[in-house]
């Protein structure tokens, strides 16, 4: 029982990280209908920016942790958002309105480019970071197994919840959210009623990148090691999460992220850790066979 609860906590933490990345995929897919393959690498870059930020601040002698974390978080959100904007500007905007596969190939190219760019700029070796946030609560202690809830896990889950709430409000209540939903439904009509479609799409990328940067910082703090290749696996997991939840649906992305996190954690805990990716993908296939639009996705209406 204790073991189960511990895995549940770990799974929810991992799921939060996946969910935050998945939002970027699902939003971009919703608005321009493309898989933004470079999104995982944006996440990777954000983890590197966070790492560099932490090292610079610690190097400068600033060690009061809340300040450091907030500064790094904000810095990394801005810089990552800039990366997201630039990627959209270079690789996707010129391809707006061209056929379906063109932006996908461009995105795969961008993903390769970013990976290798960071590899050259930062080196190929893994970057270990000693634990920055340590400590936690002991929830249960049965003698031979203790259930730990670390402060970091609390921060991750709470921050994710806050961001999700804020983000849902942004989409449902603000002018930007309305513009975005309008573009999602029909870009030509949105342009006709005076919405700046290019700007809205850019902002979608910026928001997606900013959320991914939060995930990047948390990933760095939680696992303590990053390298230039983390974006690939985290990216396809998050995309799987977005598809599982129903691509284009924001609550779906969150739910999918949680599910993928839980499946992976429980599979590693009770079965074999080597096949955890197989488990995640197999469940995706099973869900898609019975619900072809994902768990919370809207069924696509076919028009002739």
């Amino acid at each position: 029982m204790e073991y189960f609860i511990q895995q549940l906590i770990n799974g929810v933490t991992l799921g939060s990280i996946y969910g935050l990345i998945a939002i970027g995929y699902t939003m971009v897919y919703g608005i321009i209908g493309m898989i933004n393959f470079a999104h995982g690498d944006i996440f990777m870059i954000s983890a590197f920016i966070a790492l560099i930020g932490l090292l610079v601040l610690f190097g400068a002698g600033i060690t009061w942790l809340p300040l450091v974390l907030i500064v790094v978080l904000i810095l990394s959100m801005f810089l990552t958002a800039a990366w997201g904007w630039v990627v959209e500007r270079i690789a996707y905007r010129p391809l707006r309105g061209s056929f379906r596969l063109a932006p996908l190939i461009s995105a795969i190219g961008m993903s390769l480019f970013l990976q290798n760019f960071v590899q050259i700029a930062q080196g190929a070796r893994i970057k270990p970071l000693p634990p920055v946030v340590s400590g936690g609560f002991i929830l249960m202690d049965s003698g031979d197994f203790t259930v730990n809830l670390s402060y970091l896990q609390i921060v991750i889950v709470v921050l994710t919840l806050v961001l999700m709430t804020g983000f849902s409000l942004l989409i449902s209540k603000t002018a930007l959210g309305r513009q975005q939903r309008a573009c999602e439904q029909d870009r030509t009509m949105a342009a006709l009623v005076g919405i700046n479609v290019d700007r809205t799409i850019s902002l979608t990328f910026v928001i997606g990148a900013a959320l991914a940067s939060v995930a990047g910082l948390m990933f760095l703090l939680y696992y303590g090691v990053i390298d230039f290749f983390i974006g690939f696996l985290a990216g396809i997991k998050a995309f799987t999460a977005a598809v599982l939840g129903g691509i284009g649906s924001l609550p779906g992305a969150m739910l999918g992220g949680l599910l993928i996190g839980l499946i992976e954690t429980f599979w590693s805990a009770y079965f074999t850790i080597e096949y955890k990716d197989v488990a995640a993908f197999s469940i995706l296939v099973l869900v898609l066979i019975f619900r072809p639009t994902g768990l919370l996705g809207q069924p696509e209406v076919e028009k002739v």
Partner: protein
Amino acid sequence: MSVLNSEKLPPILKDSVITGLITLVLAVPIVGLPTINATEGLQIEPRWSVVIWMVSAVFLGRLVLNFWWHREQTSSSSTILLNTPFLQSLQQLLKFIIPIGVLFALILPTMPFASRYVMDVAILVITYIMLGWGLNIVVGLAGLLDLGYVAFYAIGAYSYALLANYFDWSFWICLPLAGVFAAISGILLGFPVLRLRGDYLAIVTLGFGEIIRVILLNWYEFTGGPDGISGIPRPSFFGLEFKRSSEGTFSSFFGLDYSSMHRIIFLYYLILALALLTNFITLRLRKLPVGRAWEALREDEIACRSLGINPTNTKLTAFAIGATFGGLAGSFFATRQGFISPESFTFIESAVILAIVVLGGMGSQIGVVLASVVLIGGTELFRELEEYRMLAFGALMVGIMVWKPRGLLAHREPTIRIKTEGSS
């Protein structure tokens, strides 16, 4: 520069300065502050000179581009004028290029510059051409987005390697079997997932590719895990092996002096034959009802269904035939390398093959050839700069797409395109 109006200069300059500033913002952390793995933990060693170089390069590049775009705009609107006659003459030219290309491929080994290195690159390029043609059936003709094509390549390679190692069967028996295995796995995968549309299919195939790789990596007893399989037998020429020995070898039978090039040239002709077979079968299939059905399905699935075409079966045939060619290419890869490991079958490979198909122009057989030569041969030039190779590769993919979104040789290029905002 006389075409340049004086009032145009400030916006151009402003744009370039902004681009430079953005580059500065992006480059400062990632390039300017590299983390160095030192014994006492990670250290940061600033290197501002590289950042300054990058920013100035981007600024100047943007400036030049801006001037160029400006001149294009003011000089003439020649795009539509160019389109029709230019394309027609290109079509005329293509008729001659195909036989010349095949002829060139046939006599390549006899050329004086055909060194070992050139032949190796040629074999690599033709392998990718074959894979591209195989995937072209799935993506270009049937319009199914497959991001896990490398799985079939892996299945073909491992089928041959395992059959040859466990049963000691020859390459010529294993080759068709590898194709059959790949086709079966294609059908097994395709049957449940081909009902999914577009991008759902993409992610499931991507997942399938990863699953195959993870299984190969972890099923240690059977596949050798990360160590892979080594000592895969080389193919023989009608039972004559390519070895340095006096009895029953290729060189002794034909009374030639032994040369390691014999095997390379044999492999070259082998892959050339396999690739041409792929092309021939594809071209033939396109004329059959099933080929027509693929292309119809790509254009409009609903219309197809109302005309009585079974979409699932039609897609399955495309998937299985595409997989077969992937498997054949895989078993060639295994016999050429003599060693395979899961390392060779990562997602990047799938992405490269898909890029070849799309960059060449979907559905265009010649486009695949052109894209393979440009991408594989082109990045081979960067071989010495190992780590910059994939960087250039990624940049090339983005660049070609932005420059020609429909691929280098679009099969269905409309003669005049009406520019609409936002329509897809």
